């Protein structure tokens, strides 16, 4: 996710990008999905920077410039803005060199049945939260980190069903009324979203890792159909087991590990009780994380160290993108 900070803010990259239709997508799905969408990706990805590669993994992640007909133009997997700008320039030269008739293509459009995408599981009437994660200052006079990960952050989407949105609202919308959030919802939010993704993806916690997850909602203001609640709670996760922590290097030699997070929750949400919708939502989590996983880059920084996770209501019109651990939602 370093490219968010190092590549896309670059002025030259932004200018070159105007000549393209930019798209973002999940590569494992594209590599493995059946039907024309996956076939389209695999057709050009094998001509790119990782074409044919099987070790240390068969991932095809990176940046690809292609024609709408599926002709490969250029590709790269880099967090360096100058290198990406060079790839975009090469792609545009290749595009201009192609006969116009070969650029567009006529592949059939996938029917809804062809497109078995995870986003289809987003519940009608549900809510999208952004879950941003970042290390907090460690209090030793140093910044949160140094080197390439200084001030690093990551985000995910967290989805709520309509009934889960309503669960944040006490039954009686009167000042002082309280309710505790359903355990299943809190456990899911904790297991899937209080994970240390600051330096990279990691796997969710298993349900048995949740030692405590409690969140209380208290009505603090009522103005007509607009109800404001305060959110307070605490959470503890702890998992032990055997897994690698050095990426591919120790993939075949997992050792005993422990990881966890212990923290508190605090936030505020506003509801329109007439429409049964969220008007605003902020839930802050702050605590100590510890441990490392195979791809989250913490082998040299296992903590314990302070970390924050902030859930906010995504702006209206945000496209649902599947949370990284959607399979753990069991929807």
């Amino acid at each position, binding site marked *: *996710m370093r*490219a968010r*900070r190092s590549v896309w*803010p670059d002025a030259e990259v*932004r200018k070159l990008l105007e*000549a393209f*239709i*930019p*798209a*973002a*997508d*999940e*590569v494992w799905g*594209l590599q493995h999905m059946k039907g024309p969408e996956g076939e*389209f990706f695999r057709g050009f990805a094998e001509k790119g920077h990782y074409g044919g590669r099987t070790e240390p993994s068969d*991932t095809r*992640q*990176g*940046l690809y410039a*292609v*024609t*709408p007909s599926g002709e490969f*133009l250029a590709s790269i997997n880099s967090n360096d803005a100058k290198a990406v700008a060079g790839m*975009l320039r090469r*792609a*545009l030269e290749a*595009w201009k060199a192609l006969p*116009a008739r070969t*650029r*567009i*293509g006529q*592949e059939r459009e996938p029917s809804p049945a062809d497109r078995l995408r995870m*986003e289809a599981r987003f519940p009608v009437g549900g809510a999208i939260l952004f879950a*941003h*994660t*970042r290390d*907090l*200052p*460690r*209090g030793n006079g140093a*910044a949160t980190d140094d080197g390439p990960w200084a001030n690093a952050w*990551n*985000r995910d989407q967290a989805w709520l069903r309509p009934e889960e949105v309503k669960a944040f609202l006490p039954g009686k919308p009167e000042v002082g009324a309280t309710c505790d959030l359903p355990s299943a919802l809190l456990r899911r939010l904790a297991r899937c979203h209080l994970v240390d993704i600051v330096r990279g*993806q990691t796997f969710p916690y298993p349900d048995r890792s949740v030692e405590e997850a409690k969140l209380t909602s208290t009505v603090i203001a009522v103005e007509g159909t607009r109800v404001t609640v305060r959110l307070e709670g605490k959470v503890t996760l702890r998992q032990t087991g055997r897994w690698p922590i050095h990426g591919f290097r120790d993939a075949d030699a997992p050792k005993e590990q422990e990881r966890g997070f212990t*923290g*508190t*929750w*605090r936030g505020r949400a506003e509801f329109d009780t007439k429409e049964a919708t969220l008007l605003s939502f902020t839930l*802050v*989590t*702050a*605590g*100590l994380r510890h441990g490392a996983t195979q791809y989250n880059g913490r082998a040299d920084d296992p903590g314990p160290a*302070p970390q*924050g*996770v*902030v859930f906010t209501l995504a702006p209206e019109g945000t*496209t649902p*993108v599947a*949370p990284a651990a959607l399979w753990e939602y069991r929807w």
Partner: protein
Amino acid sequence: MTTFATALLGLVVLLQPADGPKQPVLNADNWESVRDAVLPTEAESAWAAIPWRPTLWDAVLEGRAAEKPILLWAMNGHPLACT
């Protein structure tokens, strides 16, 4: 780091025991500062201002109509969610 983060740093220092980091505890006075320290700044959010189509196929269809090439950012984990 932002001014908020600097203020937070001072708070955490106060909570810091000699033998290691102590769990930060949210309260009515600090939770909004922590929120602002975690959320990306406007500059850090510049990547999100790019009109990313959320799937490759969305871009293919639009590329055909606009007769423009596609730039696909494909990662382990969707780049618009968690990668």
